[in-house]
């Protein structure tokens, strides 16, 4: 037996070395990443053995991979041993009502403008709040349960619905998919699980607010949404982080499975801390989001408004496997100051008569770099597949960059793929026209940019659209001299 194999054997077959036994009550794992940390996380969450093994497989695979270098972004080398991979809020909440929520956490939510009570009252939104990796409160669960809808934290789902998790975990984004997906698979701490049974139309928007709280903690949440035949759901994800000096890594995975005739709409508003004017601090947002239209006529629609993060690297994708299935991607990405974004989508057409639409609006200000990167792939058997892509970039200021990198791969002669892209600046004549009507230059830019993004905002649920517009204004602050 070679030395390597011996080590491997030792590690995989020996009992868990209780190296952390004294720490087991602690709320944070020590810094760094090794198999013991993976075991620690799994143990913390009292996970079944199969899940621990899955995590370990992912971890070992991750060790063989290297960070992707192809995105059009640059940042200092990440020290993966300098990150805390698990942290839980001090008080472990077992709440029966929102009133029992930690007042401090509540205050944070209020600051973010997403008061749970308000949300409940206003829109009937069920919120699964995730603070530093552990789900603290799920609302409306009972109402949903009556319809057979499961909406809970990922950890709970592992215990209460192991058969579903076992069936779907990694079925859309396998742990071998990419560097960050492998990392997430090894160390994911929590996330949301959502299951809509056959023929059920979810009566309310489901929503998760993610937030990175303590310093130096990476957040690795994992979301899984399964819509059975004919089911429908609209899912909202909002992300916010308070100001921090250190760069923080965020590597989430979202998987969506849409069966025959099912319809899943996933909306994101992301405004994590982008760092200061000089590019100090801010979140590294390296996310893998993918859905699969498994059955015929299934539909998955992604809408994202990305205004935050120092670096954004994400490509919400759809695999169009079922015939007549539909994939959509609507995106607004704003970068200001030193922010960098490399974002877009992949539409993989496998089934016949599949259709996809891509609408991407990039806005660059300050000294930021904003790239659209997208793949439209039409497989050999995807007869009569259709894609239309529109990717526009808007530049504000002469120190920023706007880039478009679409890949169109077509291998079926009955397919039709169309891509259009434009790059321009906010027109001086447009600003002057607004000025002449009494509107200041800053407000004019806001107005014009909002108009430019309207096509995407229209896809968002009402409350989200309003928030997105507000965020856009905040992001554009100081972009015009």
């Amino acid at each position, binding site marked *: 037996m070679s030395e390597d194999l011996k080590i491997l054997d030792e590690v995989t077959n020996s009992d868990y070395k209780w190296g952390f036994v004294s720490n087991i009550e602690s709320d944070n794992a020590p810094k760094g990443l090794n198999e013991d940390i993976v075991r620690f996380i799994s143990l913390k969450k009292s996970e079944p053995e199969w899940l621990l093994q899955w995590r370990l497989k992912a971890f070992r695979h991750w060790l063989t991979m290297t960070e992707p270098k192809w995105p059009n972004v640059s940042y200092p080398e990440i020290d993966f041993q300098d990150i805390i991979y698990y942290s839980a809020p001090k008080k472990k909440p077992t709440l029966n009502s929102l009133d029992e929520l930690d007042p401090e956490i509540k205050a944070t939510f209020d600051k973010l403008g997403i008061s749970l009570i308000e949300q409940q009252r206003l829109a009937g939104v069920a919120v699964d709040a995730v603070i530093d990796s552990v789900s603290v409160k799920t609302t409306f669960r009972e109402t949903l349960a009556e319809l057979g809808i499961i909406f809970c934290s990922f950890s709970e789902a592992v215990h209460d619905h192991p058969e579903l998790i076992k069936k779907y975990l990694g079925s859309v984004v396998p742990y071998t998919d990419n560097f960050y997906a492998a990392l997430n698979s090894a160390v994911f701490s929590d996330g949301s699980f959502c299951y809509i049974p056959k023929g059920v139309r979810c009566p309310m928007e489901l929503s998760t607010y993610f937030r990175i709280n303590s310093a130096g903690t990476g957040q690795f949440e994992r979301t899984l949404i399964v819509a059975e035949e004919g089911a429908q759901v609209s899912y909202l994800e909002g992300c916010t982080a308070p100001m921090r000096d250190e760069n923080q890594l965020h590597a989430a995975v979202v998987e969506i499975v849409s069966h025959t005739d099912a319809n899943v709409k996933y909306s994101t508003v992301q405004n994590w801390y982008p760092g200061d004017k000089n590019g100090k601090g801010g979140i590294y947002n390296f996310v893998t989001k993918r859905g699969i239209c498994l059955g015929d006529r299934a539909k998955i629609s992604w809408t994202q408004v990305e205004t935050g993060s120092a670096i954004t690297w994400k490509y919400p994708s759809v695999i169009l496997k079922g015939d007549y299935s539909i994939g959509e991607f609507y995106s607004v990405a704003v970068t200001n100051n030193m922010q960098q974004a490399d974002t877009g989508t992949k539409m993989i057409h496998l089934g016949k008569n599949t259709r996809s639409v891509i609408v991407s609006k990039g806005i660059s200000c300050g000294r930021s770099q904003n790239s659209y990167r997208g793949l439209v792939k039409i497989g050999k058997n995807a007869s009569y597949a259709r894609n239309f892509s529109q990717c526009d970039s808007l530049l504000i200021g002469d120190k920023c960059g706007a880039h478009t990198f679409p890949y169109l791969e077509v291998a079926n002669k009955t397919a039709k793929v169309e891509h259009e892209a434009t790059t321009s600046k906010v*027109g*001086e*004549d*447009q600003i*002057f*026209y*607004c*000025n*002449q*009507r*009494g*509107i*200041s*230059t800053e*407000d004019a830019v806001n*107005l*014009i940019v*909002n*108009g*430019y*993004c*309207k*096509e995407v905002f229209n896809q968002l649920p009402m409350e989200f659209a309003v928030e997105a517009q507000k965020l856009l204004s905040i992001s554009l602050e100081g972009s015009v001299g």
Partner: protein
Amino acid sequence: MLSIKNLQAAVEGKQILNGLNFEVKPGEVHAIMGPNGSGKSTLASVLAGREEYEVSGGSVSFLGTDLLEMSPEDRARAGLFLAFQYPVEIPGVSNANFLKTAVNEIRKARGEEILDSKAFLKLMNEKMKLVEMDKAMTQRSVNEGFSGGEKKRNEIFQMAMLEPKLSILDETDSGLDIDALRIVSNGVNALRTPDRSFIVITHYQRLLDYIVPDFVHVLYKGRIVKSGTKDLALELEEKGYDWIKEEIAVGA
């Protein structure tokens, strides 16, 4: 209300206005005519504060303050309105949203209360009738996909909404058929009050049949070379500009 003294202005290094003098009192309607390239649109642009136009001399006082020192939005807030010759398109921004922002900015500047959505809608419905505008047009993006006539009507509609003290209509009649011309003119006439003034820049006497001016001026080589009543417009329509050019040549 408006007092222009010895105004000189250039664009892209080319001198256009050469010592222009001009006075507008409350309630007056002045028509400015003149051959192509005489400086009519330059005057409108300088008054509205377009940056590409460089003022090299002279002064402009508007309601007692130095207009040239003000930013374009402050001029608008002070009550100066320009109906653009070529209104720009702003995709994705609805007319209603655009106007609500503008109306409230101007109200803020005047120290008036901001209109809520209901009050704004009421005002809009009222003013829309003035220019026989379709409700659907307020929901369309500003000027996007509008016909030439619709754009000009939209300019007058905005004027009605913003209630300016001095309006400059820069060739608002160009490209309008007779029906559109009538609608636009009716809109303007409905806004005429003893304290509101208008400067109507045009090529054609035709417009002045509908919007009857108190004074008609001829602008030539960046200066006002002849002033008169509405009869002067008729004379110009009949005889063209050559006789005025000759008059100046003889005079000089």
